[in-house]
């Protein structure tokens, strides 16, 4: 078991390292002109040289990676226009367009993304699992067909279209915007409500289908028949025996979904104008702010890898056959 976790951690680290090297190669080894791009249209050759030196672009490629890695571990210095700025570990580079270390920018963006995604998750988990479980129990009835039909339609509507229409037409919802939770939980919630509902409704459709399918399978298992034959109530059969087996795969899917949403709430953030990780990356794309882009990609990968790891470990606790086998 411990060995298994260790193995998974090692493989997770290998993924992050390969991602790091690959994206570094993509952004900085390509025959590009990162310094020129960073510098912008009104640029002097001195400033380009300055940026190149501060980014270490004048160094051999291997040393550049080493420097970047070193930055992640112990931090590094950047100098722009003679001013030396310190970038604390873990340093993922320095954004010239925003004049701030990438870590700091991401640090500011992450709480936004996490708030959006977790709030949305609460909505779709409750709605999805509840309606899925109910639909599974009344399988074949008109209620079940209605639920399944609705999920099919909701799932098929492109997410960004749905979000856009909500943003444009659902004017009765409070204006969206991000206000830190600690300042005022109420304004925090009201600012995110539209985004939560959007994520919640669209994802609830898929969770309804997952949990319905999973529950139908679980309720068809021999051990559910055994439980029924013991004379315990139908409710207990469904919610203790069925749900326990039926929800285990849903938990796995949820872990992976959550990870992807943390890295991909871009549409939500962009449409509802919430300054999260996605919007930060999007803005960086518009300004060719390569250090921020790369930082975003790295953080995203790390989040995904860690979440996958968590899912695997949680699963071993959910299923005693894995835990002890």
């Amino acid at each position: 078991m411990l060995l298994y976790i260790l193995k998974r951690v090692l493989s997770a680290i290998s993924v992050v390292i390969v991602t790091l090297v690959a994206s570094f190669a993509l952004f900085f080894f390509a025959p590009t002109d990162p310094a020129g791009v960073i510098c912008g249209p009104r640029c002097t050759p001195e400033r380009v040289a300055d940026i190149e030196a501060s980014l270490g672009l004048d160094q051999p490629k291997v040393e550049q990676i080493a420097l970047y890695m070193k930055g992640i571990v112990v931090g590094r210095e950047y100098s722009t226009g003679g001013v030396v700025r310190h970038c604390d570990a873990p340093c993922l580079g320095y954004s010239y367009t925003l004049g701030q270390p990438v870590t700091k920018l991401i640090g500011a963006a992450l709480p936004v993304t996490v708030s959006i995604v977790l709030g949305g998750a609460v909505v779709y988990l409750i709605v999805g699992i509840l309606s899925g479980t109910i639909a599974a129990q009344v399988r074949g009835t008109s209620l079940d067909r209605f639920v399944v039909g609705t999920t099919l339609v909701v799932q098929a509507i492109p997410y960004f279209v749905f979000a856009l229409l909500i943003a444009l037409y659902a004017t009765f919802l409070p204006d969206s915007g991000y206000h830190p939770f600690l300042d005022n939980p109420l304004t925090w919630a009201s600012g995110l409500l539209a985004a939560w509902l959007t994520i919640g409704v669209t994802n609830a459709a898929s969770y309804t289908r997952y949990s319905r399918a999973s529950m139908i399978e679980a309720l068809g298992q021999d051990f559910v028949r055994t439980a029924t034959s013991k004379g315990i109530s139908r409710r207990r059969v469904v919610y203790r025996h069925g749900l326990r087996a039926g929800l285990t795969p849903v938990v796995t899917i949820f872990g992976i979904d959550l990870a992807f949403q943390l890295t991909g709430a871009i549409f939500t953030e962009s449409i509802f104008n919430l300054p999260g990780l996605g919007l930060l990356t999007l803005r960086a794309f518009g300004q060719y702010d390569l250090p921020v882009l790369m930082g975003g990609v790295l953080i995203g990968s790390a989040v995904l890898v860690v979440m996958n790891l968590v899912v695997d470990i949680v699963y071993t606790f959910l299923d005693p056959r894995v835990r002890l086998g």
Partner: protein
Amino acid sequence: MEPLIEEAELSRKGAPTDPIGAPTGESVKKVDTRRKSPTQIALARLRKDKVAVICGSIFLFFVLIAIFAPLLAKLEGQDPTTLNQNLIDQYGFPTVAPNGEHWFGVEPRLGRDLFARWVYGARPSLIVAGSVTVITTIIGVIVGLVAGFLGGWIDRILSWFIDFVLSLPYLLFAIAVPAALLAVFVGNTENAGNDEVAQVRFYSLIIVLSFFGWASLARLIRGEVLGLREREFIAAAKVLGVPTRKVLFKELLPNLVAPIVISVSMALPAYIVTEAGLTYLGVGLTEPTPSWGLTIAAAQNWYRADPLYLWIPVAAITILVLALSLLGDSIRDAFDPRTRR
């Protein structure tokens, strides 16, 4: 599925001691010998599914629009690039409503013909989604087959790579990679022409989506192959001395038809959405390529004054994707009766 063929036909002439050849043996019934394969049965099931037929027709309708876009635009007498500034007032609002000349009206601000842009807009959606689907399917099937069937260290390497790709945040990459590719192919982005940028964006979109798309299918196929490999009919083929290549393509591959068809039918609408979504965000296709995503992005600022501008592409993409998704669902039901509701 219990006996579907009457056992009376089992009888064997001239072997009275054999209990199988019991009484009724003399008249071997003439039977219809042309039978349906599992795939044919699935297709027959699909043809009977009304939803599938309707959705398939809708999809075909959009494909025809994309193919005959120039013809349709000519029919209307317009093209997607001409700026009809004369039809725009000083605030950018169009002065004409949809009419015989401009069937869907004209764009605010630029005054380009909306119908022409709409029919042309079907093209990038279908081309990008179609080619990505084809590329990812081919790569996914090959990688999955090889990894699952050969096993050993090849499987370990391929599986690691599949897991690796699946654990990358693909939306972030979809934003970041075009930026890098643009720099690689165009060099200094400042001097690049619009057309050149648009072209690079087009290809980099296909590359990025393909790079991230094949892995899930590969994992699925690998799993299927691992399961099928343990089935006894594969062992039977080996015992008969059937060469590995033939086992792979003649025994295994036909059994993968269902998962491949299902995956293709699910992938196509997903890529259409992704293309339009990324384009909407400004990281997919760019002007002057006519694209629904671009139109939606531009139209969202005019949604009150000119709702048609927004709603036509929104309706198009929603209907197309809805039709394809429902079709995909029907296909899955038809090919995998276990999932039937």
